[in-house]
């Protein structure tokens, strides 16, 4: 209001606007913070803020770890039976010999990986069959 003598209407307008929109004069509803508090998510979980590829990687790592940790020779657990069934199936003569997938898996199993060694020591799977 101090600059009312200024003849430019835009400058007068800006001066008036600045007076009215002074943050100290802006009223806030009493329940604003209560409403905000009600709508804010209760707890931020940084884990869920990971990007999707990180989730996929974590899930894959967890599955691999679970297989290694739960596979015990002679153990009749589902995971053990599943890995045994998979490894046995690869060398079963009834499977089509020319399908690409078993050969790829066989190639993968031929490597000296921990999984390969674990399968070799399994009583249900003969090492030479792999």
């Amino acid at each position, binding site marked *: 209001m101090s600059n009312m003598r200024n003849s430019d209407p835009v400058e007068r307008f800006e001066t008036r606007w600045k007076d*009215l929109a002074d943050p100290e004069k802006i*009223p*806030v509803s009493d329940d*604003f913070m209560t409403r*905000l508090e009600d709508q*804010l998510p209760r707890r931020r979980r940084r884990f869920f803020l990971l990007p999707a590829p990180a989730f996929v990687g974590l899930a894959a790592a967890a599955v691999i770890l679970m297989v290694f940790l739960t596979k015990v020779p002679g153990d009749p657990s589902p995971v053990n039976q599943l890995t045994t069934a998979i490894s046995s199936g690869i060398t079963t003569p009834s499977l089509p010999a020319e399908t690409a997938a078993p050969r790829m898996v066989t190639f993968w199993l031929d490597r000296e990986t921990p999984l390969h060694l674990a399968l070799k020591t399994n009583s249900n799977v003969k090492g030479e069959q792999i």
Partner: protein
Amino acid sequence: MDVNEVKLIRDVIAGDRQAYNLLVRRMLPSLIALAGSIVGFSDAEDMVQDSLITAWRKLSSLRDPGKFSPWLKRILVRTCFAHVKRSRFEELDASGIPGNFPEPDSLMDVQRALAQLAPRQRAVMHLTVIEEMSDSRIAGILSIRPGSVRAHRRRARNTLRRFLEGEF
């Protein structure tokens, strides 16, 4: 920005709810003023609420505590633009000024003049006149170039001059 505020913002980024509430209380009037200039004061609080919830959810994307304020204002401006776009057939509501505002008649005059401007021009004018920001800071908040800020301001002032010469 003092040391305490930087620490407060660091706490907010770390997910501290109380720090967020404290920071919000400090910034609230200026946020409502900004939203009020763009969408009108009848919807301003709703815009600020939506923006604060969005900001809370996106806090992990903010790395620099010094940029909290412009970051939050960018979210608010975008929320306001989206609101104006949704209700593009409605004029900036000059009649919906809450009764607890001082000098509501004068504020209504101001709102009526702002209603002549495009939403982006209102934002540029608010950040220039009320917050006295530099063109580069305004450009950062509005995600446009400083040259565009100057162009928006020039057009806004021309429009206001034409309106005000007949009004005041």
